[in-house]
């Protein structure tokens, strides 16, 4: 028997409901983790066997479907360079756009709303369309005209290459960077801007010295998301730079390149001997995962370093 003064506020129904939803959310989490675990385990276990120093450090000489003669060095270099070149373009352009939208553009103006709508629509465009855009705009328009202006006897700029593939990817990932940067800028307290302006700082000084440093971790998060998305994308580079096979490493930004993601597609669709190719396929996927992870790790490390510096300045 309970004491007469004891009051139980929770009804049985509430507890049952609470239990049910806790269980449901837990189940959803477990499901997602399980899927991730299955994919990773499968790739790691099967890929690890074929992965060797020779595999990641050599250029395939004659047959890249044969595990003894193949290697993924050109693909690693290709994917890494297109992602890095893309980052060089997308970060400044995205950040400057976001600064304009949040700090300068009048919030209610039609122009601002049109830009925002355009950015959102850009995020919804299928990636193959970006590939076609890159071919049409960067290669056939910009590149061919550059060649004409520079009087190049053969096509230098007007053909698929690392630079155009990277620019195409930059256009594709621009919304990611803009949205992340805008969120980061909005999260900087208005009071900090006012404090700086009240001390006689110009708006530009305030943005450069106070707002952007404060928003930098958020901006880098945008960069990380862009890198992750771009590293695995194949469609935008199909027409803009990727090569099925190259006997040597790319030397210039205007060279074509081999790519890990595209190579996975090639291995899984073009092989005549599936049994022989499957181990290579697994190892290539593992290398792609590791490379994406490594690229992210660099950005995450920079961000963590920045946050630590901000928190304790000593």
């Amino acid at each position, binding site marked *: 028997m309970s004491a007469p003064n004891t009051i139980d506020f929770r009804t049985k129904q509430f507890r049952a409901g609470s239990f049910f939803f806790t269980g449901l959310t837990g189940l959803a989490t477990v499901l997602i983790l399980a899927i991730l675990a299955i994919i990773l385990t499968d790739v790691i276990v099967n890929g690890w066997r074929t992965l060797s120093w020779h595999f990641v450090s050599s250029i395939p000489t004659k047959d890249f479907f044969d595990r003894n003669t193949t290697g993924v060095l050109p693909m690693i270099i290709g994917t890494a360079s297109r992602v890095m070149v893309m980052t060089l373009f997308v970060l400044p352009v995205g950040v400057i756009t976001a600064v304009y939208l949040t700090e300068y553009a009048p919030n209610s103006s039609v122009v601002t709303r049109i830009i925002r709508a355009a950015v959102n629509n850009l995020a919804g465009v299928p990636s193959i369309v970006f590939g076609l855009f890159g071919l049409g705009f960067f290669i056939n328009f910009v590149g061919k005209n550059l060649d004409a202006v520079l009087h190049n006897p053969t096509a230098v700029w007007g053909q698929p290459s690392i630079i155009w593939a990277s620019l195409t990817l930059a256009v594709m990932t621009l919304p990611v960077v803009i949205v992340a940067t805008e969120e980061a800028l909005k999260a900087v307290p208005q009071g900090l801007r006012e404090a700086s302006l*009240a001390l*006689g*700082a110009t708006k530009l000084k305030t943005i450069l010295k106070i707002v952007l440093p404060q928003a930098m971790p958020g901006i880098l998060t945008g960069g990380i998301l862009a890198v992750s998305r771009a590293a695995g994308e194949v469609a935008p580079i199909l027409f803009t730079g990727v090569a099925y096979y190259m006997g040597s490493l790319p030397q210039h930004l205007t060279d074509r390149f081999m790519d890990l993601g595209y190579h996975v597609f090639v291995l899984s669709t073009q092989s005549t001997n599936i049994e022989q190719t499957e181990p290579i396929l697994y190892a290539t996927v593992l290398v792609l995962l590791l490379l994406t992870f490594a690229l992210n790790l660099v950005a995450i490390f920079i961000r963590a370093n920045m946050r630590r510096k*901000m928190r*304790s300045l000593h």
Partner: protein
Amino acid sequence: MAEITLPKINPLQSRPAGTGPGEPLIKINDLSLFYGASKALKNVSLNLGEKVVTAFIGPSGCGKSTLLRCLNRMNDLIDNVRIEGSVSIGGHDIYGDNVDVIELRKRVGMVFQKSNPFPKSIYENVAYGLRLHGMKDKSELDGVVEQSLRGAALWDEVKDRLHSSALGLSGGQQQRLCIARAIAIRPEIVLMDEPASALDPIATTRIEELILELKKEFTIVIVTHNMQQAARISDYTAFFYIGELIEFDTTTRIFTNPAKRQTEDYVTGRFG
């Protein structure tokens, strides 16, 4: 850089023509301010003396903070704000043509309601404004930083951790740091927008003591919700109600023998 039309003036030595000793430092003449179509300040005229503390009091939405922010043109940051009338400081119309807002804000510092130290070290917070205005020499910076922190009664508490984050300070310390930051660039006027409203009573007392100390060197205009605070620290008090200046007089008169019924009702706590 825009032409600097507000020359550096030591109000005690060189005065612009027409202002003799005892002339008000800040002259607000028939000032109205509109947010879009709504009139937030209605034909306010007010003269504020130098090296005194003037308090703006009144119920929320009476326009006291808006008026304060007119004095360093912080309202410029808000879209759709229109101003009529004039404000002159030291004989210069601050809403006139060719006014360098940067120079104005150097001379009219501000402390905000919510303490807003930069996420930098204590030292860098104070040095920020100094660097902004061109001070580079390390020993000169060190000296002014120390002097400002002493001026804000914070030096003894932070001298051993000048290079650790300002965000590690308590609320009251942060607000005093903001005061140190404001006075570091040697303004003539310091505007304070409810500087103690988010602080506990002990921290509030320290800020009030500090204000009394600062008035020896600076002209202080303070907005406050706290009537006792206005009575304790100010020499003059202006009472506002729905955008209008109802009464302006010495603090003693406002609190003991106000001329207007509305003022009396407010300071005695009958409304607001």
